[in-house]
């Protein structure tokens, strides 16, 4: 296993060396774009919390939003349906966990915010305000007992929520995977 990884890395280096172009070789048709003009698309949230926008929300507000915008796919109480279950945390028991409860499985809370903001609700993605996304995160995390019921989540504390499956993952190809220092 390590041998083939090492070989693949060697090939990468060889290919890069052979193909490296100098800037003068390329057509230079890209137009410069400012951080301001990129802002609407620059939505990824990293595990460290980098990218979290201003705003805040708690579970009580989150429950109201959930009941109007999320129940259709995720069930009245987050038990899942067409969409994955969100509430009902339990430990991972083996490979039959096809519909593992999201909060019980994700290593980082940042993923919850990122995915809700970029893709939910299914029928109208990007329609939630940042406050609403924080509130939904609080509803899901408190429903799973991972934060107190009255906790207000915001940009400075969301990434600090420790997820129960934080150390549940094994990097499949360590030599092909750049090291990352997760918070």
């Amino acid at each position, binding site marked *: 296993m390590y041998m083939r990884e090492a070989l693949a890395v060697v090939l*990468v280096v060889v290919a*890069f060396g052979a193909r490296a172009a100098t800037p003068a070789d390329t057509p230079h048709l890209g137009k410069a*774009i400012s951080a301001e003009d990129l802002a609407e698309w620059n939505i990824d949230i990293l595990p460290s919390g980098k990218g979290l926008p201003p705003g805040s929300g708690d579970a009580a507000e989150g429950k109201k939003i959930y009941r109007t915008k999320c129940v259709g796919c995720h069930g009245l109480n987050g038990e899942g349906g067409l969409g994955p279950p969100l509430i009902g945390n339990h430990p991972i028991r083996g490979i039959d966990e096809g519909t593992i409860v999201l909060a019980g499985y994700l290593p980082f809370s940042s993923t919850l915010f990122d995915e809700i903001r*970029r893709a939910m609700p299914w029928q109208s*993605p990007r329609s939630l305000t940042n406050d609403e996304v924080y509130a939904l995160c609080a509803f899901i995390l408190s429903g799973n007992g991972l934060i107190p019921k009255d906790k207000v989540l915001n940009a400075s504390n969301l990434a600090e929520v420790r997820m129960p499956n934080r150390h549940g993952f094994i990097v499949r190809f360590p030599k092909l995977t750049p090291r990352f220092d997760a918070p």
Partner: protein
Amino acid sequence: MGMREELQKKAVSRLVPVAGNGLLHRREFLNRALTFATAATASSLVPTRASAEALTEPKWSLVNGGPIPPYQTPSKYASNVVRTLANPYNLPKVSQSRTPLHLLEGTFTPNGVHFTIVHAGIPDIDPAQHRFVIHGLVRQALEWRVEDLLRYPLVSRLAFIECGGNSAPMFSPTPIQANVQALHGLVSCAEWTGVPLSILLEETGIDPRAKWFIAEGADAPHLARSVPLWKAHDDAFIALYQNGEPLMPGNGYPMRLVLPGFEGNMQVKYLRRIKLVDEPMMSYYEAQVYTEPLPNGKAYQFYFINEVKSFITYPSYGFKLPFPGLYQISGLAYSGYGRIRRVEISADGGKSWAKAALDGVPRSKAFTRFRIPWHWNGGPAILQSKAVDEFGNEQPTRARFVAQRGELATVPSLMAFPNHHFNAVMSWGISPKGEIANVYA
């Protein structure tokens, strides 16, 4: 007995098996005296076929034919060569379509039947309004339009694309009786044409702190994955064409990321944004959907590479061998690491093996078609294929694979794929009646 049959019997009597249960040397293909039984034209040496009838003019030879359509589609008589759909009514959930690999030949997947998975429907993107940006840990963030990218030096290459969840039904505790399309149809192979990502990164410059890049689509899920930056320097490119024509809407029109050999979901379709970063973003698709739960309660993450794999497409479940005789075993092999070096076939459940012939020169990270002649004596047989790539990676036996990755407790839905990256040796059992079953051997 006619002269043709006599000649064939003589030819068979000269054949020397190279492995147990009737496997013949791969070069026996070149023996023109042999007639192979195939899916389309079953013929055999025994029993002798009835003599042919007198020829007559068929009706289509007596009238003028139809007009030429601007874009041709297959004959109505080939209307069974289509994808199977997991979500035909576009309910609010993932949609999958599987490629009919058991009805195709060669190594190129026609665009109309290339497998497609979309997580919230196929977006309707106007290429004139599509924008693509690279930013993050770069010297200068840049934006390109489709028309800009078409002015760059384009490259073409073959590449298979395989969903990480392809062959997931093989995790079932008992073999699911289903055809190649249902079991293994989430893989296809095409010639992709586009702009190497490394060229665009030359123009943006790269901050030395960058170790990963995030790729994001313009579809409703805004699907995003983290990719190690070395792949951009290696062979990643932004594809605009698929088998010579603009990308199909289900495969990423107007542009997609192609990461040869990597898990399909990472090869982001409808690509609109690449951001260089120093840590992976842990998107939903890399922190949940495409992780691989293990028997010990942990899970694999960042299973980038689709490892060496092969399966026999003929004979396979759904076909029937009409009578004992000579057949051509055929199938597909590929490896996300590089080229296929060899494929071995067994007709006795892995007790003995013979080398298959490979069509043409195997291409890196692309389908390789293998074939071998087989004389079925009418008794039970178990057909297996085992591929080895240029780095010596070999498909594991099912026993070895399952010991590490586990087996499900209950039979899963054919349409679901909670488990991924199955690449163990697969087996087709042949009964004395010529019926074919998925078996664990």
